[in-house]
């Protein structure tokens, strides 16, 4: 059923044909056109020495902001503009250079790495000899000779290995972090060829798909020509050695290159990762567009007014102010356009280049606080939080949906074998006495407590089956030769390694029940049974576990010649295939255990006689894997396999998985914070539901809605969906949104359970008949009203689909996906924020995530504290930046009305350049790094505070408009305040007059102080750093102004600022007006703050006051106690 989805995903790409050793196939076979393949050169570097400057410049100027500043700079160079090109050229040059140096350095590192990879020597078989070659010269079809501990230079098909069984062990630690050894298999027909001469004589072609990025998927076929008769063999991912993996525990192998260079799966994987952008960045860009419009309209208005005003020639060119001759002769249109550009240049500071730099710095530096956080350090693992991208810090404060994996994320993924049930008898390993298995006494489902002899036979077969049906490897201690075979003496010098902890748990559980799996040798599996005898089973076929079939199978031949097919998998995958046995009892037990939060692996044992295997199974088996073109859809062999079985017994081992520490507390907090938590798991419904109850995702009063196959079998999907939506909507229809936002205890909570099969039915695109309708919408409507959703039986791709569905719903909520395994990667990449847990299932999730944390519980601090802070900080940063530039530029705009629209700048060049770079940059940067509007303990204690910032609430348009209006107001107060002060009078005590530069400097002084004080008013957390930076930058401004005006600067061609600042300060009214204008500018903001806080306080503000008065009362209490003493 699950495969409905898979079929859609399967895009058959064009295939390629490879001649092993470049030998043409014998004539008569299909004529293939030899394709051209790239060589094995890896180019991860972007630039060469020659193209660095142009290409890097091109890349950098592709960013809209940089391009904009470049245009402004060029305009300044070309036309006669009010401000010198230095004012915008210098900051731009600085930004571009720093970025270029950083990127150049990174690229240089890449070049070095590329060279070392490309030039590393590898051994290739040519004409029966092993030849050394540089890695980059490797071509598709070359036969490569690899030794132990070498890393594969490209994707290879294993031909033969030093091991007799044609296997080799590989670790993919550098690919996905899984350090366990994985077994790969040589092609059966070539595994005997294990000298270079023999290998050279192989005559074969490989047909396979064109390279695809999926690391775990590969289909192909090898045609081996034996005496010109082609023998076709299937190739799967178990034959494919990936570039980047390392050969282990195997002396040497021969393999043939099939994907080289940039076509290797690893290379393809790295190209496809896209960059995520945060919601804040999106609103920032929207604001930018608004400001760009403001800028253009300002310039347009001024240009139009200029020409209207200049219509009178005596205004245009009074006798005292003649144009130069060339200027006079310029065409009016050219002049108007130049004027427009000049206005643009004059006002361009409204979009400051420094904002981008500050935002980048804030994100980069800010992310260190996550890494530094002591509370997100896990002592056990010795791991701390990792930030892979700092672009999304603030997105952590905006999460609305949390999609979490269950196993390894909510739970420990620490598997332990608890019990098993054979034919209805429950066995608990802990109750073993002297090797005797005692059936568990606690079970009520047991039919007969004393298993008869037949049962014992079943039981032993079952235990053997568990010992055989797995892909566990035995890792032996290689150090001391004496204990190399320690496992035979029953010592624990060796341990089991597997990619799945369930398997290890099962094999170890069997060890405690008396059956010890020893090793796989010469394709024989050895088991030490209860009588300490070694039993040998020949391993004929292994069909490894995959997420679609959700089971694995082996075929073994016992020493007596009997053939067995063992199949192990999730119970839902097994039960439908069961033909006989006590199905009902076992199902009952499974369900009973599900509530106890155990995980099931059911086992199907199929007994076959050799004849049957040879006649039926064998051809089927080879069919299955041989026809790689036809049978990619795995549903087909599954069905055939099911037909094969006549089952013997249906045992049910249940490994137990413990909930992670504080997982329930974390989920509860997330709920209170208004987030909807969805659990997406591949597990069965009952287990998953039990975990959900244990982790408080579902509470006792949660009404569970089921949308599962069971229900849709009874009713049509259509009816079920409408039923559910009616239930949910009736409840919420009567309530307002507000009352729902209260704590979840007040009203009925809904929890939804949906399984993979039903989900795929819901997601199926609407059919043409109107009846089916659009289920997605109804489903989303139901989900919106459920506080918790559990999706079980999910395939990895479905996880991503769910995330995508929610992402695309009409509110466009911010999603977060958290998981630990490779199966979570797709959803981690899909969600807005992807978080990896450093769990046991390798590091793939961590590698692909945006942030990685050691444990699930750390999510709480990550979101509620760090996310909240970052959001507050960056939203203030963005708003403040726009505000301070409105304040900065609007007076210049107003001044145009008083200077004949001549683009005369109000401020001096130095002020124009340094305003954003040094006078007002550091306070906001430091604010955006260390502001804490509420103490972090309160944030953690009261998760509902998170709701205050939900939905990007601090960057909504009304707030943006408020800031802009405030900026305009401040600008008007500053400009006209100074205007009326200057109005046709003097304000010095010696009667001397001030000029236009004093006017500008006075406005600028008020501006710098106002803008800095505004930030000071917004600062809630005054550390010594804030004091230092805020007062420091004001002092810097004063000192700079004194210096700038105190000296005749020899390198300047103008001395307009000479003594302007000092003369200004020598006047009393200037001081008075500075104080007055600052007060008047700040007044509305203070008033708004106080009134809003008093009349309509947000939760945050209430808490702040509470915290404040709490602190005060503590201080008073202490003082009082001191006085009493």
């Amino acid at each position: 059923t699950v495969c409905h989805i898979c079929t859609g995903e399967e895009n058959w790409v064009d295939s390629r044909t490879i001649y092993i050793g470049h030998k043409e196939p014998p004539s008569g076979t299909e004529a293939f056109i030899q394709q051209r393949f790239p060589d094995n050169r890896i180019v991860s570097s972007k630039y060469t020495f020659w193209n660095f400057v142009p290409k890097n410049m091109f890349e950098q100027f592709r960013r809209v902001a940089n391009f904009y500043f470049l245009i402004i700079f060029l305009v300044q160079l070309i036309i006669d503009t009010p401000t010198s090109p230095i004012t915008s050229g210098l900051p731009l040059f600085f930004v571009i250079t720093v970025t270029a140096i950083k990127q150049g350095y990174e690229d240089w590192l890449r070049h070095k790495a590329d060279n070392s990879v490309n030039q590393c020597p590898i051994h290739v078989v040519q004409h029966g000899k092993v030849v050394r070659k540089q890695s980059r010269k490797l071509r598709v079809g070359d036969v490569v000779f690899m030794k132990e501990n070498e890393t594969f230079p490209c994707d290879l098909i294993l031909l033969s290995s030093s091991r007799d069984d044609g296997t080799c062990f590989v670790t993919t630690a550098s690919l996905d972090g899984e350090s366990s050894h994985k077994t790969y298999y040589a092609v059966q027909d070539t595994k005997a060829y294990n000298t270079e001469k023999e290998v050279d004589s192989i005559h074969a072609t490989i047909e396979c798909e064109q390279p695809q990025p999926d690391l775990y998927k590969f289909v192909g076929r090898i045609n081996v020509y034996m005496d010109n008769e082609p023998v076709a063999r299937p190739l799967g991912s178990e034959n494919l050695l990936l570039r980047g993996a390392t050969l282990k525990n195997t002396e040497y192998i021969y393999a043939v290159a099939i994907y080289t260079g940039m076509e290797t799966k690893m290379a393809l994987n790295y190209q496809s990762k896209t960059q995520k952008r945060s919601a804040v960045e999106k609103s920032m860009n929207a604001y930018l567009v608004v400001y760009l419009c403001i800028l253009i309209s300002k310039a347009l208005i001024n240009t139009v007014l200029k020409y209207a005003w200049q219509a009178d020639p005596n205004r245009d060119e009074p006798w005292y102010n003649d144009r130069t001759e060339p200027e006079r002769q310029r065409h009016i249109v050219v002049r108007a356009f130049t004027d427009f550009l000049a206005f643009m240049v004059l006002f361009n500071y409204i979009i400051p280049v420094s904002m981008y730099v500050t935002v980048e710095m804030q994100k980069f530096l800010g992310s260190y606080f996550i890494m530094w956080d002591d509370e997100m350090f896990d002592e056990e693992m010795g791991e701390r939080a990792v930030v892979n991208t700092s672009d999304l810090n603030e997105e952590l404060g905006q999460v609305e949906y949390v999609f979490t994996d269950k196993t390894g994320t909510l739970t420990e993924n620490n598997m332990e074998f608890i019990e098993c049930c054979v034919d209805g008898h429950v066995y608990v390993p802990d109750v073993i006495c002297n090797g005797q298995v005692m059936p568990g006494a606690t079970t009520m489902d047991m039919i007969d407590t004393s298993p008869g002899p037949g049962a014992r036979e079943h039981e032993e077969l079952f235990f053997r089956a568990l010992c055989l049906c797995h892909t566990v490897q035995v890792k032996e201690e290689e150090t001391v030769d004496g204990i190399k075979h320690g496992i035979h003496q029953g010592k624990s010098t060796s341990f089991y390694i597997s990619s799945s902890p369930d398997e290890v748990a099962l094999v170890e559980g069997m060890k405690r029940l008396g059956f010890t799996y020893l090793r796989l040798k010469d394709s024989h599996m050895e088991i030490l049974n209860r009588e300490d005898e070694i039993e040998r089973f020949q391993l004929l076929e292994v069909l490894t576990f995959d997420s679609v079939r959700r089971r694995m199978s082996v075929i073994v031949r016992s020493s007596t010649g009997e053939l067995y097919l063992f199949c192990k998998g999730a119970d839902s995958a097994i039960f439908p295939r069961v033909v006989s046995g006590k199905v009902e009892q076992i199902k009952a037990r499974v369900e009973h255990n599900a509530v106890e939060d155990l995980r099931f692996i059911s086992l199907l044992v199929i007994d076959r006689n050799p004849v049957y295997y040879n006649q039926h199974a064998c051809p089927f088996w080879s069919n299955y894997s041989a026809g790689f073109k036809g049978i990619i859809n795995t549903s087909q062999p599954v069905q055939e396999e099911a037909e094969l079985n006549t089952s013997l017994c249906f045992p049910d081992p249940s490994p137990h998985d413990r909930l992670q520490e504080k997982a329930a507390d974390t989920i509860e907090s997330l709920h209170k914070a208004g987030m909807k938590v969805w659990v997406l798991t591949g597990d069965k419904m009952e287990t998953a539901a039990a975990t959900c109850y244990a982790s408080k995702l579902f509470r006792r009063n949660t009404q569970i809605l089921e949308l599962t196959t069971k229900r849709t079998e009874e009713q049509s999907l259509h009816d079920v969906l409408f039923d559910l939506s009616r239930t949910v909507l009736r409840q919420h229809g009567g309530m307002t949104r507000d009352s729902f936002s209260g704590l979840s205890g007040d009203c009925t909570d809904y929890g939804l359970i949906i399984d993979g099969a039903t989900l795929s039915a819901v997601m199926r695109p609407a059919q043409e008949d109107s009846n089916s309708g659009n289920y997605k919408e109804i489903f989303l409507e139901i989900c919106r009203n459920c506080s918790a959703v559990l999706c079980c039986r999910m395939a990895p791709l479905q996880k991503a689909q769910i995330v995508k569905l929610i992402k695309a719903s009409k509110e466009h909520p911010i999603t977060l996906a958290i998981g630990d395994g490779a199966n979570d990667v797709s959803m981690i990449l899909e969600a807005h924020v992807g978080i990896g847990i450093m769990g046991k299932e390798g590091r793939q999730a961590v590698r692909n995530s945006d942030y990685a944390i050691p444990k699930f519980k750390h999510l709480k601090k990550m979101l509620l504290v760090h996310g909240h802070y970052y959001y507050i900080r960056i939203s203030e940063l963005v708003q403040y930046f726009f505000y301070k530039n409105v304040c900065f530029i609007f007076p210049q705009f107003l001044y145009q009305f008083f200077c004949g629209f001549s683009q005369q700048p109000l401020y001096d060049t130095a002020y124009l350049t340094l305003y954003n770079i040094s006078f007002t940059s550091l306070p906001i940067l430091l604010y955006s790094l260390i502001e804490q509007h509420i103490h972090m303990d309160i944030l953690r204690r009261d998760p509902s505070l998170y709701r205050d910032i939900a939905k990007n609430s601090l960057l909504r348009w009304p707030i943006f408009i408020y800031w802009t209006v405030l900026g305009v107001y401040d600008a008007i107060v500053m400009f006209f305040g100074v205007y009326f002060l200057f109005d046709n009078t003097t304000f010095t005590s010696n009667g001397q007059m001030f000029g236009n530069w004093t006017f500008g400097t006075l406005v600028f002084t008020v501006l710098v102080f106002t803008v800095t004080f505004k930030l000071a008013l917004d600062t809630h957390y005054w550390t010594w750093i804030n004091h230092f930076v805020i007062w420091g930058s004001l002092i810097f401004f004063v000192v700079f102004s004194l210096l700038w005006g105190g000296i005749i600067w020899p390198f300047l061609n103008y001395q307009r600022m000479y003594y302007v600042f000092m003369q200004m300060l020598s006047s009393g009214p200037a001081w008075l007006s500075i104080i007055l204008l600052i007060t008047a500018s700040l007044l509305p903001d203070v008033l708004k703050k106080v009134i809003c806080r008093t009349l309509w306080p947000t939760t945050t503000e209430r808490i702040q006051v509470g915290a404040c008065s709490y602190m005060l009362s503590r201080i008073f209490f202490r003082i009082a106690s001191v006085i009493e003493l």
Partner: protein
Amino acid sequence: MMASSYNAKEEDGHHSGASNNGGAGVVKSKKPDNTAFKQQRLPAWQPILTAGTVLPAFFVIGLIFIPIGIGLYVTSNNIKEYEIDYTGADINDACYNCAKNFSWNSTTPCLCSVPFTLEQPFESNVFMYYGLSNFYQNHRRYVKSRDDSQLNGDRSALKNPSKECEPYRTSEGKPIAPCGAIANSLFNDTLELYHIDSNGTRNAIPLVKKGIAWWTDKHVKFRNPGGNSNLTVAFQDTSKPVNWRKPVFDLDPSDPENNGFINEDFIVWMRTAALPTFRKLYRIIQKKPSTTPTLPSGKYVLEITYNYPVRSFDGRKRMILSTISWMGGKNPFLGIAYITVGSICFFLGVVLLIIHHKYDTRNNSADIPS
């Protein structure tokens, strides 16, 4: 990307490991430092703007600002100012003919005199300004049309003025000194003031022309090339600005120290005004040592040598007499603004007090159940 980026990442890891804790195990080096800064637990002052805390500030601001405003307003009102528009725009004006018949080429100066009466005596020092209206000294083309190096006495700039001075850079093949539009349009009306005493005799009032420019401008920013010794030689091979009647070294025949670039009238003019209506300090009438007012009430005559045309651009010319207080000339704005802001603060303080009383209790009671 790819393999190399893995390498880079691993390298990073090693770096941080090595730098944090040389030689110690990887596990230990990963533990973050427990410093107040890194854990974001720096001691901090956490002020909050509530009605309670802001209230006193509002009252205090109100209580401080209102008296200051009243003081400023009173001071401003006590300043005496008298203004005469002598543009000659109207046919009845004394200077109508001079304005009408103005020509750049006329060699004979046009004279006119405007009588006026001061109702009240002007005590202490009286400052005499000329004012221009609709004169865009702050026009960009105008503002930049100067060469500060030349004005600072730089010899090379004297001979080769900056390009910014165009089209007032050279005349008759010689560099203009001082170059540029600002210098070229130097205000060159001469104003003289006569007191007509009860007998009808005209007494010239002594006008001091020292101290009208900034000290730093006069002594540092503006310098004559080659010192003040022989200006005629220093300005050899330069041409006077086209609209000037006399060369720069001959601006003030009465005082050789007041010639060349350091002529104070010139310096005052070179400080471009911020707004199109402006006034510039022209002369100072020093207080008399005796108790008699500097300008007693009575009849006066303003004698004008009309050289400066403003009619073409609808300009206005004024002569202003003003006394000066510590806060400068007559400007009620600052006082009114202080009173307004102070009153607003006080009023808001009262409003906030009401709000505070009314709602704070409500909030507190609402807080208790939660």
